[in-house]
C-alpha cells in the first residue's frame, strides 16, 4: 500500500512546473506537429466511427489495424525508408476484401475477420524477429503496437500526408453526409431508390483503412479501434439525432486527443494509452449523463 502511495506521489511530482514544461515543449516543432496530426486524425476517425459502429462494423477497425501491423513489419524487414507506401495499399486491399467477404457470407464474417487479424499479428511479429536488423526487437514491436513515441518523430512528409488525407476525408464526409446516413440507416432502401450503396460501402472501407494507417502513428495499432469507437458510442449515450451524434463525436474525439497529448508530455506517459484512457473516462461520464437524462 505504502509502495503504491509513494509511486503515486512520484507520479504527481512529474507535474511540478507542468505548465511551464508544456509551454516550453510548444517551442519544438515536433510537438506542434504531433498536436496538429493528433487532432486531425481524431476528427476523421470519429466521423467514420459513427457509421462503423451503427453498421456493426466496429471490429473491422481492429482487424485492419493488425493487418497494418503486419504490413509495417514487412516494410521494416524490407528496409524501406518510407513504410507508409507499403502499409497503406496493403491495408486498403484488406479492407476491400473484408467488406466483400462480409457481404457474401454473413455468418463467417466475424471468424474470417478474427483469422485475418490474428494471422497478420502473428506473421508480423515472426518476421520482425527473424529478419529485423535492429537490436531492440521488443522495443520496435512495442512502439508499433502502442505507438509509444512515433507521433513525436513524424517526418515532414507524414505530417503533410496526414493533413492532405484529413482534408479529403472531412470534405467528402460533408459532401456525402446525407447519402452516408441513408446507406447506414437502410442499405436496401437506399439501393432500391437508386443510391449505389455498394460504392458508398467501398468508399467507407477505403477511408477507414487510410485513417487506421494514419492513426497508428498516434496510438499504435493495438489501440486504434479505441479512437474509432469510443467517441461514437459516447455521443450515442447522450444524443438522439444523427447530426448531433456526429458533431458531438467529433468534438469529444478532438478534445480527448488534444487533452491526452498535452497531458502525456508533462506526465511523461505514452501518448497513445493516455489518449485512450481519456476517451474511456469521457465515455463513463457520457454514460452517466445519458442515464440521468433518461430518468429525468
Amino acid at each position, binding site marked *: 500500500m505504502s509502495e503504491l502511495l509513494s509511486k503515486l506521489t512520484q507520479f504527481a511530482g512529474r507535474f511540478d512546473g507542468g505548465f511551464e514544461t508544456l509551454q516550453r515543449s510548444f517551442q519544438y516543432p515536433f510537438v506542434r506537429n504531433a498536436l496538429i496530426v493528433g487532432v486531425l486524425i481524431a476528427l476523421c476517425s470519429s466521423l467514420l466511427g459513427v457509421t462503423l459502429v451503427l453498421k*456493426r462494423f466496429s471490429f473491422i477497425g481492429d482487424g485492419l489495424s493488425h493487418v497494418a501491423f503486419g504490413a509495417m513489419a514487412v516494410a521494416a524487414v524490407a528496409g524501406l525508408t518510407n513504410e507508409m507506401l507499403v502499409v497503406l495499399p496493403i491495408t486498403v486491399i484488406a479492407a476491400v476484401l473484408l467488406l466483400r467477404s462480409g457481404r457474401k457470407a454473413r455468418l463467417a464474417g466475424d471468424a474470417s475477420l478474427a483469422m485475418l487479424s490474428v494471422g497478420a499479428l502473428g506473421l508480423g511479429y515472426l518476421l520482425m524477429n527473424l529478419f529485423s536488423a535492429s537490436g531492440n526487437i521488443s522495443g520496435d514491436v512495442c512502439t508499433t503496437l502502442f505507438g509509444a513515441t512515433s507521433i513525436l518523430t513524424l517526418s515532414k512528409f507524414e505530417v503533410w500526408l496526414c493533413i492532405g488525407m484529413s482534408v479529403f476525408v472531412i470534405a467528402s464526409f460533408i459532401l456525402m453526409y*446525407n447519402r452516408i*446516413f441513408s446507406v447506414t440507416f437502410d442499405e436496401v*432502401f437506399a439501393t*432500391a*431508390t437508386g443510391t449505389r450503396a455498394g460504392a458508398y460501402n467501398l468508399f467507407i472501407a477505403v477511408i477507414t483503412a487510410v485513417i487506421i494507417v494514419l492513426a497508428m502513428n498516434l496510438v499504435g495499432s493495438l489501440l486504434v479501434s479505441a479512437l474509432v469507437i469510443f467517441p461514437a458510442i459516447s455521443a450515442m449515450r447522450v444524443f*438522439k*439525432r444523427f447530426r448531433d451524434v456526429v458533431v458531438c463525436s467529433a468534438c469529444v474525439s478532438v478534445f480527448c486527443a488534444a487533452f491526452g497529448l498535452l497531458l502525456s508530455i508533462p506526465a511523461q506517459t505514452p501518448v497513445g494509452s493516455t489518449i485512450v484512457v481519456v476517451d474511456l473516462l469521457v465515455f463513463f461520464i457520457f454514460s452517466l449523463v445519458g442515464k440521468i437524462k433518461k430518468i429525468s
Partner: protein
Amino acid sequence: MPQLSCKDVTLGYDGRAVIENLNFEVNAGEYLCIVGENGAGKSTLIKALLGLKAPMAGKITFGDGLKQTQIGYLPQQTPVQRDFPASVREIVRTGCLTEGRARPFYTPAQKAHAEERMRRLGIDGLANRCYRELSGGQQQRVLLARALCAAERMLLLDEPVAGLDPKVSREMYELIEQLNQSGMTVIMVSHDIPAAVKYASHILHVSRTPLFFGRKEDYIETDSGKLFASVPGGVEDV
C-alpha cells in the same frame, strides 16, 4: 399499359429456382396483395421487383412512365434500425435522395416535400423525436412517409403490420387504403390473408409456382382462398 408486368419470370439462388413461371401485371391504382407461406419466395420476388436481384429467366418491365427506382419501398425493420440514433425528420428526408442525384444537400423543395409527407401521415408532431423511442406503429408510419417521399405512384410494402397489435394494424391498413384511394398503386406482401381479401383488388398467391393470380372476388372462390378466408381471427374481428 400496365405500370409493372412480370412475364414468365423465374427467380432463385445459385441456379436453384424458388419461384417459376410467374406471370402477372399491375395497373395504375390497383391494390395487389402477394400472399403465400414462408419460404414461398415472397422476399425474393420483392428483391427482384426492386431491381436488387436479376431474374434467372423471364422479364420484369415497368411502363406507364414508372421507373424501377421510383417505387416507394417499405421494408421490414432490421435490428440495426431499432437502436438507431436519428430523428424522424432525418429519416423521412432520405426518401428524397432519388432525385437530383448529383446534389450533395437537400433542396428547399425536397425539405418541403418531406414535411408534407409527414403531415399526410399524421407524424409531423413527431418530426424531432428520436426514431428508436417511438412505438412500432409510429415507426412504420415514419418508414411509410419515407417511402412516399421516394414514390409518386407505386408503393411496395413488405409485411407492413408485422409485429403490430390488432388495433394499430387496422389503422395501418386503413392508412394504406386511403393512399390507394388517392391514386397510389399498392403492392403488399402479407401473411394476413383475411386482410388481403378485405382490402386488396387483386391477389397473387405464390408457392414455388404461382397458385393464383387475379381479382380477389375470384380468389375467394378457389380452394386455397376458401381455406384461408374462412380461418377465424385476422384483422376484421377486432
